[in-house]
């Protein structure tokens, strides 16, 4: 039997994979990919909870997360293009102008 716990453990694993990606990647585009992984992991979690408690709230939330992710990608890629045009590189270490 697949219980909620299985799904939640899966969510946790996927989330930590996303975290590794966020910490590890220095290419900005890859960083965005990792962010997508995080969001998708959460989506699985929400829908799993929704199914096992018979509540539609989880699915609605996942729905809105997808919408948000879409707009985030649009804006994020736009900014990335601008940055690339200005600096010629999408490496994270070239983004280091705001040194404290």
């Amino acid at each position, binding site marked *: *039997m*697949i219980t909620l716990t*299985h*799904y*939640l453990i*899966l*969510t*946790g694993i*996927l*989330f*930590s*994979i*996303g*975290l*590794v*990606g966020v*910490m*590890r*990647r*220095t*290419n900005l*585009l*890859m960083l*965005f*990919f*990792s962010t*997508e*992984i995080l969001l*998708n992991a959460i989506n*699985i*979690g929400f*829908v799993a*909870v*929704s*199914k096992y*408690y*018979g*509540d*539609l*709230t989880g*699915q*609605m939330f*996942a*729905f*809105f997360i*997808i*919408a948000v*992710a*879409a*707009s*985030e*990608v*649009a*804006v994020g*890629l*736009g*900014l990335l*293009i*601008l940055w690339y045009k200005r600096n010629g590189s*999408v490496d994270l270490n070239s983004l280091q102008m705001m040194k404290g």
Partner: protein
Amino acid sequence: MFEIIAFYIFAALTIGMFAIVVMSRNALYSMSALAGGMIFISGFFFILDAEFLGVVQIVVYSGAIMALYAFGMMFFDTTRDVSEKMRSKKIAYTLSVISAILVVAILCAPLVSENIQASYPSMDNVGNVQMIGIVLFTKYLVPFELAAIMLLVAMIAGIVLASKKMDEYLAIEDDEVEEAKEVK
């Protein structure tokens, strides 16, 4: 039975795909793996009786978002292998392992999971799509409208940011106006 097999296959595949995304040096491989992972996640949604969401996942994520990433990748020079020096790997891995344990511990704690009650319970005779439609347009109407506005804004922002000459100036100079009038 069927469900168990499907779950484990999809889980293994998803984890594998996302691992490739995170670990690979080739950008193209990462992107393709991401697209694959998205589709398997959609599979998860179908197992969990969220058909509408599964379809939306494929359409929006694998269709629109990955296409956007693909176009973005064409823009940047990504044929070269991305060489990254990762600093202090140990810290990164430790942190993520710790956070994974914590998240799981929180979510699986029996106290938390026993007190949840459904606020929008799904009814059995109605299909998932109809159910989502009912809830979306009655209870979640305002977030829906707001999400629509947000998407509009994102679209305009994307166009503005990425079009030509946008990094130079955003307003027409006076002499250009004169030029435009003379051309006419």
